[in-house]
């Protein structure tokens, strides 16, 4: 079936609302406006004001209310327009949602799902374009997932809702308009497992979310040059599926991490370190990475594009890794 990422998520939301009375969606502009990225368009008419709740621009209050509602037996899906705005509710997510189970000695769990867009590429400038997924992936008590395919966009929400713990679901804004064939016959995606999106023998390209299409494009270019790149899609940023990552790297013996976060303290750094810790002697070349330049994302298109990982830079970095031998 031909569909977009946006429609895939909308269908996932509709399914969730239909299948469980406890599920409701709240956030800024999710109702009357139809969602800032039009993901929830039509759901208000279908499910009514009680279950598709427009909130004030009060991130801390409505995310905290989502946490409280989850404690009270509901299954809230809370949409925060972008990860940039989520800094206004960082306290509720990090100090409350992530800690309650542990601090209460296991008495309370928080089954809330937080949806946020992330990433750059739409000339929205610095305050709407950042990729801060790794900040959340840093925090014990949270689960962090990032769908990168239509099937994952369609399937991950249901899995997140089944999870008894707080889950943050990152949707890259550049994916929404992309169209493709959605394979509905595939089994439900597994939240915790990384997926090998393209098999290869020479080098592992490890990425997630909005950078998967660019990485696959780079792999295609490399294939034409005779380099067989394996593309690993993390899917889950916390916990990381080390098993799949290490299996791929042990096979190809080279790895490039592709991450739209800034290089310093990035997920790419974390993954590189884990590979160094556990598969150092399996490597045939130094590890390398393609990250966003260490700059607040600029507005001007050419500068924005220059700051971000691109298929060309990914392919170039892979070629360099192929040329180096330890």
């Amino acid at each position: 079936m031909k569909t977009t990422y946006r429609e895939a998520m909308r269908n996932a939301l509709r399914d969730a609302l239909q299948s469980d009375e406890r599920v409701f969606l709240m956030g800024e502009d999710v109702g009357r406006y139809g969602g800032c990225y039009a993901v929830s368009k039509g759901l208000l008419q279908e499910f009514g004001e009680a279950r598709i709740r427009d909130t004030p621009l009060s991130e801390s209050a409505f995310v905290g209310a989502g946490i409280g509602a989850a404690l009270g037996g509901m299954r809230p899906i809370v949409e925060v327009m972008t990860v940039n705005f989520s800094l206004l509710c960082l306290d509720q997510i990090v100090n409350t949602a992530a800690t309650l189970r542990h601090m209460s000695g296991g008495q309370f769990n928080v089954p809330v799902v937080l949806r946020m867009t992330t990433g750059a590429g739409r000339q929205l400038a610095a305050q709407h374009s950042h990729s801060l997924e790794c900040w959340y992936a840093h925090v014990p008590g949270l689960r962090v997932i990032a769908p990168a395919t239509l099937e994952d966009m369609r399937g991950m929400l249901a899995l997140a809702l089944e999870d008894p713990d707080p889950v943050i679901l990152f949707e890259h804004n550049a994916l929404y308009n992309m169209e493709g064939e959605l394979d509905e016959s595939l089994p439900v995606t597994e939240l915790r497992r990384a997926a090998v999106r393209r098999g290869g023998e020479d080098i592992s390209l490890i990425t997630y979310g909005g950078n998967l299409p660019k990485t696959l494009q780079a792999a295609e270019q490399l294939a034409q040059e005779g380099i067989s790149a394996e593309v690993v899609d993390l899917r889950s940023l916390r916990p990381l599926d080390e098993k799949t990552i290490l299996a791929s790297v042990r096979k190809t013996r080279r790895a490039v991490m592709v991450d739209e976060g800034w290089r310093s303290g990035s997920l790419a750094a974390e993954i590189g370190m884990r590979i160094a810790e556990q598969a150092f002697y399996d490597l045939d070349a130094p590890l390398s990475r393609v990250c966003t330049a260490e700059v607040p994302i600029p507005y001007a298109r050419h500068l924005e594009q220059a700051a971000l990982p691109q298929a060309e830079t990914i392919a170039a970095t892979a070629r360099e890794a192929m040329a180096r031998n330890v």
Partner: protein
Amino acid sequence: MTDKPSQIGRKQGLRWLRDMTRIRRMEEQCAELYGQEKIRGFLHLYIGEEAVAAGCIPELDKDDAVVATYREHGHALMRGIAMDAILAEMYGKREGCSGGRGGSMHLFDAATRFYGGNAIVSGGLPLAVGLALADKMQQRPGVTACFFGEGAVAEGEFHESLNLAALWQLPVLFVCENNLYAMGTALARSESVTDIHQKAAAYGIFSAAVDGMDVMSVNTAMRDAVRRVREQRVPAFLEMRTYRFRAHSMFDPELYRSKEEVEQWKQLCPIATLSARLQAQQLLDRPGLEAIEKDVAEEIRAATTFAEAGHWEPQEDLMKDVYTGRE
């Protein structure tokens, strides 16, 4: 402020006296145990403010929810958490009400719907709004009572939460314990408008200021407010004007207020004044008072023994309860 009610019934009066005495003596024991290094971390005592917890919490039903702050020992005790489990928690023992994971600032209890124990100022307010939202959406009759200090009023979350509660007409009762000092900062040094209940009125929420040193005034106001929230399914707001006799925490040298001021407020001690009124009404005599103190001392002795005898959680369980399932 509401008028001070005149006549106290015997049973109710003695109950309040016993409850407030339990809170105070338990906390005096905590201070003692802190000195002995049995209790560590931050310890925020409620001494002086007992009338609020004792007057408010018994007005809630068992299915209602309570959200409190880091100065919550009294609320926890009034909610029915055993003194044993509270003291064991402060020791960090497995038998504590949070399994030794929370300590003084993070008392939790699922059985009594006690949701903290929140050490982030105003962090509990959005949570309370959400608990009330869950009650509303599931058409349950519950009330969520949220206790916080006047320091929380300066946080954005206070305003966001009041707005949301009023906008969505949620059954949440905000109880501000205004003890005049946010840590060491006096109210007048941190707020442009110090009449706090007016802030709630600005959101269209019913609100009242209450003499928080008088348990009967507290109780009367609480009973009315709970009824309003339960029956009308709307938020309400009470500002309890109270005072803590001790420092903010055990690390506070209290350089921000005068001894004279503290002494003046001590004249309003909710326990001493109630005791005097009961005696004046001839509802309590010397032996009666001694009997209460004796019972409470026995409860504290037993709770301390329980905490002492408790167990340290095995270190192998360190990673337990970070996630509900496997990571």
